């Protein structure tokens, strides 16, 4: 139970439905899925959580060593699935959590039935012939932006905000709360994310996988989505009409439809 509290895990939907685990990316928290995950509650057990260091997770559980690579986050995903006794998991990961899902499926292939990768990138930084989209200097610019935007965070406020389970949902009085967390943790997560290189992991995960690719995604460009599709043995790609990096927010219906179509193909409907 402690693990579930630490990750602010919420479970909804059909108790006996095939589980879907939604993982948020760098920047915000599980609320990223609020326009998407409810669409699956009629047929699935829907599991949401916050990565340690994000949202309403237990910030005191943040261990810089454990989370110095994406592997630490993948271990958490596996641990949550095991704690809940999930099987045949459909993992839906946005942004950096797409690769966290790939790593989780490498570590515990028996848990996962399929992966939905929303805006995946196995490496954000350009490397020889590989075009990730960013130079290393982008890291410093991002860290500068993070330093300049504490988003209402202050050390004095932190315990009040984090310790209050009745936190008003995204209310006026807590502007920016949904992206707010400890600046030091955010800096570390930003660095781990941008420097991650999971290209070699892609070929080793053979569960049915859907790459959901937006147009004009500056963080995960089309060529990167195609790279992921081509490198994974059992992946297909759907190119969305949505633009940007967050179709789960900007085009939730299109996102839901694409996932539904994929699940219909990949997994025969249960009798």
């Amino acid at each position, binding site marked *: 139970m402690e693990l579930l509290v630490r990750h602010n895990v919420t479970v909804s939907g059909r108790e006996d439905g095939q589980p879907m685990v939604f993982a948020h*990316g*760098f*920047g*915000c928290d599980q*609320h*990223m899925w*609020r326009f998407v995950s409810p669409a699956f509650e009629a047929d699935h057990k829907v599991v949401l959580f916050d990565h340690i260091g994000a949202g309403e997770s237990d910030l005191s559980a943040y261990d810089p060593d454990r989370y110095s690579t994406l592997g630490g986050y993948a271990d958490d995903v596996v641990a949550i699935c095991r704690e809940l006794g999930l099987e045949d998991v459909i993992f839906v990961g946005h*942004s950096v959590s797409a690769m966290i899902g790939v790593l989780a499926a490498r570590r515990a292939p028996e848990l996962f039935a399929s992966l939905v990768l929303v805006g995946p990138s196995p490496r954000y930084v350009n490397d020889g012939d590989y075009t990730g989209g*960013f*130079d290393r*200097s*982008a*890291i*410093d*610019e*991002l*860290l*500068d*932006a*993070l*330093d*300049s*935007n504490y*988003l209402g965070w202050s050390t004095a406020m932190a315990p009040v905000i984090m310790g209050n389970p009745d936190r008003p949902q*995204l209310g006026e009085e807590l*502007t*920016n709360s*949904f*992206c707010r967390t400890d600046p030091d943790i955010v800096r570390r997560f930003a660095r781990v994310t*941008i420097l991650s290189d999971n290209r070699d992991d892609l070929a080793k995960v053979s569960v049915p996988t859907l790459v959901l690719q937006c147009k*004009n*995604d*500056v*963080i995960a460009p089309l060529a990167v989505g195609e790279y992921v599709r081509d490198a994974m043995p059992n992946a297909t790609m759907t190119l969305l009409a949505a*633009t*940007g*990096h*967050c179709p789960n*927010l*900007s085009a939730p219906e299109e996102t839901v439809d694409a996932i539904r179509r994929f699940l219909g193909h990949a997994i025969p409907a249960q009798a």
Partner: protein
Amino acid sequence: MTAGSTDALEAFCNALADDDPEELYDRAPCGYLSTTPDGVIVKVNQTLLTLTGFERTDLVGERTFAELLSPGGQIYHETHFAPLLRMQGRAREIALDLVRKDGSRLPVLVNAILEFDDAGGPRVIRTAVFDATDRREYERELLRAKSRAEESEARARALAQTLQQTLIPPTPPEIPGLSVAAAYRPAGDGSEVGGDFYDVFQIRSGKWIVVIGDVRGKGVEAAVVTALARHTIRAAAVDGRPPSEVLRVLNDVLIQNESERFCTVACVQLTQKVDDWTAALSSAGHPLPLLRQPSGPLLTMGRPGTLLGVVADPDLSDTRVTLTSGDLLLLFTDGVTEARTNGDLYGDERLEAVMTEAEPTAGGVVAAVLDDVLRYQQEQARDDIALVALGVPA
């Protein structure tokens, strides 16, 4: 303020006087831009063009707001700004860098609102952009100062811990033929050097000195006196003079040192006699050691004496006792007996009870006392705690 925005302000004030809405928009003292929900720019004001150096035709229908940002800023936009805007319908005081047409950077503060249509779908994003060049430089200065302060604090903590380690033996002390156990807990979170110390050292074959002490106060100044005390005792004890004479030397040194600090010390000289040990003890204002024997009540050993560093001729004496098989001697500092919780004092009686009940070994006594006194204070020691126990094997 740049020259451009000063002009803009003047033009804005003129427009305000004329109450011309077009001019108020175009000449506003901040940049305005409207975009589709996807971020494609559909309308900009003149101030924004002046700030960025772009022509209207460079932007309208051609670029997204995110494309005006630095690459790192684009990541921030996609992972924080855009989600905030979509979830809250607004984003306030977001600091970003715009890239001007000539490639230079313009630090800005951005407020944005997302307007919805009647069906509840997103319709347009309206964004106001404020030149924040000076403010950003000021904030960077604050951040630099903050990070310097944090580094400095970390260095002070490391220094305190290093200094602390010089006040106690680097390895657990051992005396052949005796079991020895010791413990040391600095007060609080260990960020400040305490004034307690102990030492165990040999002066010749079968002859050892065990000393425990407490320098009044904390911090670097106390640590200097503590180091002085520890090394003076080592130098003075080496010729085998009685403990009271050793402490008298330390008293002279402290008085000559003109330090405001004074200290309490208990010094034991141990001499091996076949199976037994003779212990000669002198206390200078220090809590008296406790002696537990296989039978009989717990005894306090020695006479209190005068603390050191205060008067030129302190009252110091030696008490001799023979330690035989099964005897246990505990030296401690007042961090034990004067531990407090909710105004209550730990006290001598509780210490004596714990020592009486403890497993009858040096290690057992030290572990039991340390555990009990820390638990008594909810693990938050308000004063340093030092313990040394000596046991004659049964």
